[in-house]
């Protein structure tokens, strides 16, 4: 026995080193996770700002582990003139996060000079094509303007799921096909305008919402989303919460992609 113990003895320092290496790896992983969390916080506005005359709410659920590529932003361009943008950058990780942050900054800084949503996406596309990254993104953008108490929404989509308009218990997709952003110099985007009447709501979302899958490998899909959105709504927050709860329940709370959803309601 003592001989065997003698044989084991020299191994111990290695074992200690091994344990130390594991601890270091765990610590570094924890630091990375904390960094990812901090980064995500800077990219996602925790709650949309108060928009006078409208009821706006958003929900964001990152996929587990990495910084996701979903983003949204709600900001004021001028009095009674607001911009809401939602997007999905291909891929994940810090590289995607850099594109996400670039996209948000370009939209914010160019919105005043480019009142047409399609024009603003052209500016964003040019910026992303110039950007050294090879990632691309899909974006839906809505410009909301109030005149004499009437809200008009102009919207455009660049390869992004079309916003949904809910009105009197029915849902309609709004938009025309547009280009993905960041890949090509020649792009096409089209504007669609609607009056956002009392009780109407516009819902912007990312494809992680409709691509959620259940155990039988079925997709959540647009129909289920439209159904849950057309239920009796008390507020934008209720609509957003109910939709995301339904999506999460469908896939037994195992989201494989980010989920972002923004509701703009005329109360």
């Amino acid at each position, binding site marked *: 026995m003592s001989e065997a113990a003698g044989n084991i003895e020299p191994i111990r320092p290695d074992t200690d080193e091994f344990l130390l290496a594991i601890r270091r790896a765990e610590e570094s992983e924890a630091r990375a996770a904390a960094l990812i969390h901090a980064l995500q916080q800077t990219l996602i506005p925790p709650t949309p700002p108060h928009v006078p005359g409208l009821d706006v709410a958003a929900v964001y659920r990152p996929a587990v582990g990495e910084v996701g590529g979903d983003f949204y932003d709600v900001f004021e361009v001028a009095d009674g003139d607001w911009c809401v943008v939602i997007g999905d950058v*291909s891929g994940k990780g810090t590289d995607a996060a850099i594109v996400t942050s670039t996209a948000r900054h370009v939209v914010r800084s160019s919105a005043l000079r480019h009142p047409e949503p399609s024009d603003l996406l052209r500016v964003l596309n040019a910026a992303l094509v110039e950007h050294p990254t090879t990632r691309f993104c899909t974006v839906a953008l809505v410009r909301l303007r109030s005149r004499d108490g009437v809200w008009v929404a102009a919207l455009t989509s660049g*390869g992004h799921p079309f916003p949904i308009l809910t009105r009197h218990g029915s849902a309609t997709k709004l938009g025309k*096909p547009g280009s993905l952003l960041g890949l*090509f110099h020649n792009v096409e985007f089209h504007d669609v305008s609607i009056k956002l009447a009392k009780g109407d709501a516009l819902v912007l979302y990312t494809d992680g919402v409709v691509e959620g899958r259940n155990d039988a490998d079925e997709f959540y899909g647009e129909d289920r989303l439209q159904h849950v959105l057309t239920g009796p709504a008390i507020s934008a927050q209720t609509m957003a919460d109910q939709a995301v709860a339904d999506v999460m329940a469908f896939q037994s709370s195992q989201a494989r992609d980010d989920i972002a959803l923004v509701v703009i309601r005329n109360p």
Partner: protein
Amino acid sequence: MLDTSMTVTVRAVNGQHAEVAIAGEIDMSTEMKLRTSLVELVEQGAKEIVVDLADVTFLDSSGLRGLIEVVRLDAHLTLRHMQPAVRTVFDIVSIPALTIED
């Protein structure tokens, strides 16, 4: 990441024309493999690539990248036999040098 859920089969290469069949799911975890396969064909001289998507069960916006990289390399892409769930991705996006056939 695992990419076992997608396969790319080159069916024919005839000068500038190539035909490829894909099976499985095209998403973030598999798009790179697809992109590499298609780009390789273009580098070997293919300018017209026909892609049969009959056995593709899933395609999302991240997966699109795998398909359209070759369009950026000035190749023309024809997508065939898409299942309805896959086709919906193309209902919302306009891509140059892309033909969609039933």
